[in-house]
């Protein structure tokens, strides 16, 4: 009996030791602080959507602990913004604004919402949100970023004049900022792009087929138009010349020539649109690189 008791005690101790041993060497992954560490790691690694889930898990597991919930919500918003889920990012930044009126992240959340709208291509929403937010932002740096974003929205809407006016109207100190200066420079460049005239291209193609396209630097297209219209027109002329107004050949080629001729004028106008758009897109790509660096 005595032997049984001592053996049982020994076994219990061994089991307790085993339990402690097994868990002593293994990190408790699901402790809130470890979840937070892992979330930060995923964020640094660029795995933003997974990081957002981990930050949320952190909040769920540590319901009563963190005093910095606003910063975590802000980080979640940032994860979604960088993961290109803009609707969710706006929701989380809005949560910081609504639930934490004294947060340090208030100004940044305002900017991030406007910027998320901008990145999702909702320029009007971005503009109106930026305008509403300006009065609520306390820090000058925050206000400047919103003003720059407003200018940027005008640039992306290709409202060059408005962009120039807005960026020129900034206070002197704001104007001296490198980003403001380069945005103003881009806006001025956009206004003065060597665009082609649709009217002139149409007129040129109406007088000499294909020349409207050559005016837009599409010489090959222009020559093909000239040759096609010239040859079909010649066939129509030949038909009418031989058999007069009753010539079937003349009417068939005449109709084809008319379609080609009208198509050539329309095509020249379209070519101008494409040309101008390419010019503007090239400039916007340069702007994109600049803001990618500045607003990241």
């Amino acid at each position: 009996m005595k032997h049984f008791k001592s053996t049982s005690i020994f076994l219990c101790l061994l089991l307790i030791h085993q339990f402690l041993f097994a868990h002593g060497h293994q990190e408790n992954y699901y402790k809130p602080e470890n979840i937070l560490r892992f979330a930060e790691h995923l964020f640094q690694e660029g795995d933003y959507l997974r990081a957002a889930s981990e930050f949320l898990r952190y909040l769920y597991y540590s319901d009563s602990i963190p005093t910095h919930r606003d910063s975590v919500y802000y980080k979640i918003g940032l994860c979604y913004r960088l993961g290109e889920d803009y609707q969710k990012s706006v929701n989380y930044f809005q949560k910081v604004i609504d639930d934490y009126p004294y947060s340090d992240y208030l100004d940044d959340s305002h900017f991030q919402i406007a910027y998320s709208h901008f990145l999702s291509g909702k320029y009007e929403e971005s503009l109106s949100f930026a305008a509403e937010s300006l009065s609520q932002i306390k820090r000058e740096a925050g206000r400047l970023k919103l003003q720059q974003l407003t200018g940027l929205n005008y640039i992306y809407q290709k409202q060059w004049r408005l962009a120039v006016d807005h960026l020129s109207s900034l206070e002197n100190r704001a104007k001296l900022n490198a980003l403001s200066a380069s945005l103003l420079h881009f806006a001025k460049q956009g206004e003065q792009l060597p665009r082609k005239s649709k009217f002139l291209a149409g007129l040129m193609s109406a007088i000499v087929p294909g020349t409207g396209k050559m005016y837009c630097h599409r010489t090959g297209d222009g020559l093909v138009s000239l040759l096609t219209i010239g040859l079909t027109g010649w066939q129509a002329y030949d038909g009418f010349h031989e058999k007069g107004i009753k010539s079937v050949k003349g009417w068939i080629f005449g109709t084809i020539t008319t379609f080609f001729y009208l198509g050539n004028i329309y095509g020249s106008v379209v070519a101008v649109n494409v040309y101008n758009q390419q010019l503007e897109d090239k400039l916007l790509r340069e702007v994109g690189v600049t803001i990618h660096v500045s607003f990241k």
Partner: protein
Amino acid sequence: MLVLNKFLLSGIILIWTLPGIKHDMALFFGERFFNSENYYDAITEYKRYIFFNSEKEDDSISHAYYKIGLACFHLGQSDKAISELRKSIQAAHSARMQDERKIDLAVVLIASGNPKAAEFILIKVEMFSQIPELKKKAAFFRGVASLYSYDWEQADEAFHVYFNDLEERSQEMPEKLESLLERAQNMKYRSPKLAKILSAILPGSGQIYAGDWRNGLNALLLNFATGYFFVDDILQRQYQDALFNALFIFGRFYRGNRYHAKEAAIKYNERLNQNISSRILEILEGKYSDEKNKRN
């Protein structure tokens, strides 16, 4: 009493000696998610394991990277899968594990349409691995990779290595496979260049040479009809009509006919390759699963 003590003690020893991997929560969840095809969450858990155990000096980190790679592959992210499998090779501590992972990487490369890169890795395993079983496995997959790049000679050589292993004379290369590979090496391809030349001399003949009788006859008829009008215009001295015909009707059909002759030959060769390759793969699939069953 003694029996009970022995039973309890052996239980304790069993628990004591279980490898750490079995206790790990992140790996446990990772495997569970992976097995239930929830690959996104499986990746999160494996990443968690790697983050908290990066200092570990066993093959568990390599295993985690390997599973991430497979999960990425299942999610259709081939590039990520390849990069994770490379990490898995780097993290492997034993030579055996490294070689196994290299073969896994090669399989993913084959499946993602890059058999040449797979061949390169497999050749290295065959040359440098110290484990005969893995050398053999690498030879098998090198054969498969060669089938995908239609390199019949290489495939033949690789399967000979696999089936006629010096140490295991009992395994013979299946007769059917051998004859198919021999047939593949003696296949008569159609030359795209010759098809084009033939169609330039007699329209449609290139397509017929490539086995496309229908399109060949169609091309012959169309070119004959339009060519007749072209020659007739010249004989009638109607040079404008002849020019128009040459540019827009006969010329287009003639050029199209030459282009399609070349394409028909390319398609013919591709069909031939695909047909024989899929027949060989069917045989291999049967043979491989038989062997696997035998081993199990």
